């Protein structure tokens, strides 16, 4: 199986997978603990309009999707702050209108677009070096921000009033977090697709929460779970000719079940 590593497409897929898995796992901590799962899912679906705009204009769909997703994230953050609409309703509005715009834009594009399928369901094996470079630059930038500011981010998701009193700029952090999630989700689309990308935000941190006894351990375990799922998923999918994105998610779920059973056995043993 290790001979797969000789193929450049597999090398690119592994580098991108580990990078995106780590990024989505770190972002997922704040998404899950702040109960923003619907928001990340909404952004992923709404960014179809960005993909469609890129395909229509002949631009890189990944770049246009990032731009659209960042704008949607800022719109959600501002509407949450400045209107009395519930967060769910705002995300629902952005989610559906973004997808609708994408479908309308795609209707202008004649003929079958095979690239579209890769954004809907993910196609990490078709990744080009220039796309990998873009993922590396943006992914590492967001990861550095998270690692440098994880204390403030943790306070922000724990209790906003307390975070504010301790000098956290709530509005700025809300926008930065939303934009960070939006960009991470769009980058993850190439790995898992619009439909499944939220899974890597949710599964690693949910698994790590079962085992973590501190916030720092939660961060490390989340990244570890995501990377194991990505590497195992990529090798299994290549060996058995399965879709990589879906296989990665099933590997993540297997780790979650193992962690849940392991925790149950340990607690039973202690009682």
């Amino acid at each position, binding site marked *: 199986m290790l001979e797969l590593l000789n193929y450049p497409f597999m090398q690119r897929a592994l580098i991108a997978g580990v990078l995106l898995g780590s990024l989505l796992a770190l972002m997922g901590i704040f998404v899950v*603990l702040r*109960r923003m799962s619907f928001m990340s899912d909404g952004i992923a679906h709404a960014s179809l309009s960005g993909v469609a705009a890129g395909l229509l204009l002949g631009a890189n769909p990944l770049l246009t999707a990032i731009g659209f997703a960042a704008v949607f994230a800022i719109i959600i953050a501002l509407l949450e702050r400045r209107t009395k609409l519930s967060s769910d309703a705002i995300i629902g509005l952005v989610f559906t209108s973004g997808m609708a715009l994408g479908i309308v834009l795609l209707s202008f594009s004649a003929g079958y677009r095979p690239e579209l399928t890769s954004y809907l369901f993910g196609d990490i094996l078709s990744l080009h070096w220039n796309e990998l470079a873009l993922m590396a630059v943006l992914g590492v930038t967001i990861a550095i921000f998270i690692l440098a500011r994880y*204390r*403030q981010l*943790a*306070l922000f*998701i*724990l*209790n906003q*009033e*307390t975070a*504010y*009193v*301790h*000098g956290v700029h709530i509005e700025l952090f809300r926008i930065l977090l939303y934009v960070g999630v939006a960009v991470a989700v769009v980058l993850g689309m190439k790995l898992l697709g619009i439909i499944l990308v939220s899974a890597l935000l949710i599964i690693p941190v949910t698994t790590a*929460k079962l085992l*973590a*006894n*501190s*916030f*720092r*351990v*939660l961060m490390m375990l989340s990244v570890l779970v995501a990377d194991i799922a990505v590497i195992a998923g990529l090798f299994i999918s290549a060996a058995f000719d399965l879709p990589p994105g879906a296989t990665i998610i099933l590997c993540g779920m297997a780790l979650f079940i193992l962690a849940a059973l392991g925790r149950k056995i340990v607690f039973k043993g202690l009682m």
Partner: protein
Amino acid sequence: MKALSVKNLNVAFGRNVVLEDISFELDSGVIAAVIGPNGSGKSTLFRAILGLIPYAGEIKIFGDPIKAALPRIGYMPQHFDFDRTMPITVSEFLSFTAPRLRKPKAETICGDVQVDTLKHKLIGELSGGQLQRVMIAQALYKNPDLLLLDEPSSGIDIEGAKAFYELIEHLNTKHKVTVLLISHEVNFVHRFADQIICLNRKLICDGAPAEVLNRETLNKLYGSRMNLHLH
């Protein structure tokens, strides 16, 4: 210099006026208590002083606007709502609030408020009393000049409340921290506070306990059911 100066403060949520024309001042180094019945606007007053809600009027802290003075304020909220499943230890939570605080100082604070034995516990697993002590510690971690405590001893028994007020008195005399606290325990604040501010949407009284804590004021605040028995 005045530690806190509130002038003509008005707070309304829509048409509901919660605070009306409140003015008072605190001298540096005093312990002041805000008393009043439920719904009298005590917590709203604190939220305005912290700049958490919009208000009309003027609030100055050590002569500065709120934003500039925020690093000098320690705050313990009445309710600390958070996701109890979040795995974050007491030690992490406290260090996240003040990453630059030196270890010996942090250890002294934890010892003073008796959270040193809780450091490795997850905050979601703490009892109500333990969480209160952690919240006092996070307020003190800022090394504040002004400490705002919103019902800090609620849910603690009489002995616990007594010990708590003694700790506040110790911080006030030893570290010269100005303290403004909300309390329902009129008997305790009578003993420990230098200044009482009585609130029932309007300012009912403002002065030394011996001057303002009388039957007439208490009747105005709580009705005739309240009696003053000193502990």
